[in-house]
């Protein structure tokens, strides 16, 4: 059985992935309108406050989910949920940088065994270094 404290000591808060993004207005509009969004700052690229929806920001977290040397825990990671905290509007057509680290690791014991939860945090910055948003992805692994 993997020791959660050992995993935390070894892996928490170490950046393991960095990726640049440029968001396109077209995709932002489609993601917003299909979600039922009506506010012009999310569906009208000509609006002076046009920006990405919080849900769209969570899509940026897909890709490499765990550090390359993270131990196999037995099961396939499942997407247990997502969270986003917005600090400033995220605009299209500018260079964005996402920096990813493991924010938390914890377990829950159930009748079918132990489930391990891993919170992968992506912090999104613009070119000036302003922190625009943080997204958390909760991976759930049923230990084998």
């Amino acid at each position, binding site marked *: 059985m993997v020791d959660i404290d050992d995993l935390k000591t070894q892996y928490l808060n170490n950046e393991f992935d960095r990726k640049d993004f440029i968001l396109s207005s077209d995709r932002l509009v*489609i*993601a917003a309108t299909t979600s*039922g*969004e009506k*506010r012009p700052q*999310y569906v009208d690229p000509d609006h002076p406050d046009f920006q990405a929806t919080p*849900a769209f920001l969570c899509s940026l977290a*897909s890709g490499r989910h765990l550090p390359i040397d993270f131990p196999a825990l037995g099961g396939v990671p499942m997407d247990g*949920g997502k969270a986003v905290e*917005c600090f400033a509007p995220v605009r299209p057509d500018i260079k964005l940088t996402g920096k990813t680290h493991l924010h938390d690791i914890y377990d829950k014991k159930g009748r079918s065994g132990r489930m391990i939860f891993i919170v992968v945090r992506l912090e999104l910055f613009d070119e000036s270094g302003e922190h625009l948003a943080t997204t958390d992805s909760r991976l759930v692994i049923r230990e084998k």
Partner: protein
Amino acid sequence: MSVNTIHDVEFGAELPVFEPDTRIENTMAFAKSVGWGGPRFEDHEGARKEGFPGALVPGIMGMGFLTSAIHSWAPNGNVEHIDTVFRAPMLADTPAIISAVVTDIDEEEGLVELDMTVKNTKDETRVFGTAMVRLPLE
């Protein structure tokens, strides 16, 4: 009923019910817009071949439905934080109902906390979560 300022919000108030568009044409368009194409999002039969009960609504689209419901209720509000738990898959072409209730109000800061759920028509919870929304003070 929509709200304009923090003073319009009542503790325990329920937001108007929001019924999202879960037709596969719509959910597939969302999936493609975030770069998540593939049979599991685009085709019921293809999704079944991957072991799913049908084509899936992307999990983060559930979050998108929730924020749209909030914006519909509070046209001047800004979602500062939203946290969703994917309890079970949402299926395309399956109606869903979003409900939300006000669980906390900070009138000095203009912040409202909401508990939110996405259920299917069998009253089974698919997604649930919380949101923190900032509203104008005046």
